[in-house]
């Protein structure tokens, strides 16, 4: 996607089928917040035609089931199958925890069948990608992702599965995923501008997964000086005490921003690394940073521990009073000094 120079090829039509499995519908709700444009119109503008979407389409009941049957039989071409929500294999491998309404048929069977017919299959959100929140705890429903179970390849379709278009399941991870991650992936696919090289090692589109949530975080000055928040609503860095994984989590949340101007960290909340497999069971409370001898266990990606310890000690000793005081307040108690001469 990044390095192509050949012109885009506008498709005559690029058919999209969207299925909801065991999820919360949040990725669809997120999609509907897609920028200034109406998302279905924006997709249509690049040739994407919605065959059926459970929250948006007119067809209900038998008409809807008939569309799914025609897709599965190959009578209706599916270019992109988007699956939102985890696939439930329980109880006892029957898939009975989710039978698609009207057909009585386990959702996992519908998904398996239509994925064989579709040109590309996309996991929309971390539930469909890895199992996600649906697989938390004892995973009583035996939830998994389309091609992963947590960080282990496999899932519903199997580790070596490829779609007819030659790609594994494209994991648009996130809980929910950002609307633009969905529309831009679909747009690139429709234009013939997306291939295997555009996926990272967890098959996430690299255009968002090659960033860290840390990039663009407004708390970076606090991070630099290890001036840390101690309690919710403090302005300081959320990494040292409050569980933030933004320096390790792959996503562009603080570059792209959510709902106009937000992100989890900008909302005062730690990044819980919701684009990463297994994020739902971190092995510690989400609002606390696990530490060993006072040092966070989860160090920033690409940073050796010794460096981090040395840098933290140095930066803590050099923290300006403004940054130190503001870090533990909920508004700036010391504002940046105004210099009396021209900036150099």
């Amino acid at each position, binding site marked *: 996607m990044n390095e192509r120079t050949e012109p885009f090829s506008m498709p005559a039509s690029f058919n999209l089928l969207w299925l909801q499995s065991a999820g919360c519908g949040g990725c669809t709700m997120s999609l509907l917040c897609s920028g200034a444009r109406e998302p279905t119109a924006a997709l249509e503008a690049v040739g994407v035609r919605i065959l059926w979407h459970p929250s948006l389409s*007119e067809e209900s009941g038998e008409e809807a089931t008939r569309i799914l049957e025609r897709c599965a039989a190959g009578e209706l071409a599916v270019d992109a199958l988007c699956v939102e929500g985890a696939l439930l294999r329980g109880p006892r491998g029957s898939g009975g925890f989710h039978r698609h309404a009207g057909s009585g048929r386990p959702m996992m069977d519908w998904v398996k069948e239509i994925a064989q017919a579709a040109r590309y299959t996309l996991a929309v959100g971390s539930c469909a990608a890895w199992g996600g929140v649906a697989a938390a705890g004892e995973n009583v429903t035996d939830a998994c992702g389309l091609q992963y179970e947590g960080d282990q390849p496999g899932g519903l379709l199997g580790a070596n599965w490829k779609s007819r278009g030659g790609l594994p399941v494209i994991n648009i991870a996130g809980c929910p995923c950002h609307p633009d991650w969905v529309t831009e992936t679909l747009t690139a696919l429709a234009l013939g501008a997306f291939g295997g090289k555009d996926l990272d090692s967890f098959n996430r589109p690299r255009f968002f997964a090659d960033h860290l949530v840390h990039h663009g975080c407004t708390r970076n000055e606090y991070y630099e000086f290890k001036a840390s928040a101690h309690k919710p609503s403090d302005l300081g860095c959320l990494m040292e005490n409050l569980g933030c994984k933004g320096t390790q989590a792959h996503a562009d949340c603080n570059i792209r921003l959510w709902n106009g101007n937000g992100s989890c960290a900008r909302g005062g909340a730690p990044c819980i690394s919701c684009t990463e497999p297994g994020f739902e069971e971190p092995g510690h409370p989400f609002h606390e940073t696990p530490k060993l001898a006072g040092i966070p266990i989860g160090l920033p990606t690409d940073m050796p521990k010794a460096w981090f310890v040395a840098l933290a000690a140095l930066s803590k000793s050099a923290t300006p009073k403004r940054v130190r005081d503001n870090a533990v307040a909920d508004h700036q108690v010391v504002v940046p000094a105004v210099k009396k001469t021209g900036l150099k």
Partner: protein
Amino acid sequence: MTRIVVGPFNRVEGDLEVTLEVKDGVVAEAWAGSPLYRGFEQILRGKHPMDALMFAPRICGICSVSQSMAAASALADAMGLAPAPNGRITRNLAHAVENVADHFTHFYLFFMPDFARAEYAGRDWHARAAERFRAVRGAAAADIMPARTAFLAALGTLAGKWPHSLAIQPGGVARALEASEKIRLFGLLRDFRRHLETVLFNDALESVAALDSAAALARWAADKPRGDFGAFLGIADDLVLERLGRGVGRFISYGNYPQAESQFLRSGVWDGKLHALDAQAIAEDISHAWLEGEMRHPAQGVTRPQDEKAAGYTWCKAPRLAGLPMETGALARQVVNGHPLARDLVEHGGGNVKSRVVARLLEIAVILPEMEKWVQQLAPGEPFCTQGELPSEASGAGLVEAARGSLGHWLSVADGRIANYQIISPTTWNFSPRDSDGTPGPLEQSLVGTPAGEGNVAVQHVVRSFDPCMVCTVH
């Protein structure tokens, strides 16, 4: 007598299957089925209590702030914590943005597209309805989606993102607002108001909120074109939607939007008269759900799946208040709170397809002007979050109103961990199955007498008039 299974229901949140016994072209009996089980109540057991703030919003993508509010309130109750005034106001704003946006989304994207269906091709209004409201391709979408997105940008500022924000805390919010953001929010609300007043109502919100009877509503609608709401009222008259989907006649509201001393919308029960809400009288029957156990108050509730239970036909429990099914939602909220239009509609036709839709749009007109006042009460510089300790043994309840109605979380903590967590969501009330007395749930009762069969979409209207959220139902 023929039995038909209707599903999937498009444009409802989540998966729904309704079984109908049809006699002489009308529904004789109905069974509401939720064919998905996710197990949040099992997932939450053993977790750190504060982890509820991460899991609860993920019960539902469409009312995630409501779920966060219920979890934060249950935790605050367990901690004996009162939120900071700024935190209380900010939470109310975030919650109201979601609730108002949900009503707006339901009307345009979920409910109105059914009137564009070919089945109505003979009606005078059909061509206009099809042009404006047709699913995906209607002209309204291009109007309303950018307005909705701009309005939801308020949640970017208030809570970081929507859905699934972690900003909502037991003591308030994790994000203190600055003075400039207070200005921005006020501007966003005014901008959305302008959109509502031109496109949806063609009138001032205050004039809509002041409509005090069915007759006043009819006069208002006849006076001049009244936007998309007016279009709905015209269709509702022609199809006599006030005769469709008559409910159980008992309405519950937990009350919403806490103020310094009271709630902006009061709690209570309405059955022709107003009663105080006795939350201890709530119990969940599981005789017809694929679950083990017996009827219990949610504070002692148990959730254990049992998929081979012969009497089961859904994953949804059957909440009852003092043994009776209750309707919940915007209509219930406005009736309990004493809005004269809602009371008049219910007195003369009960809960029905028309009164439920009217109540939702009425509530938009009631709440948005309040939100403008709330923003102005914010005091940047003062605390937005109070801090507290959670005892290692504690219990708490969080009762709030989601867009779709009464939402409760019941939490107990033992040894510093969640010992039990039970959730009753609005659609669990409305789409509950039969109980052990054989009494059907509110939707099941509302469908009786509805015309059904080939080419008839009346059942679709009745189902969608409740604005069901099945993903919440089957948490």
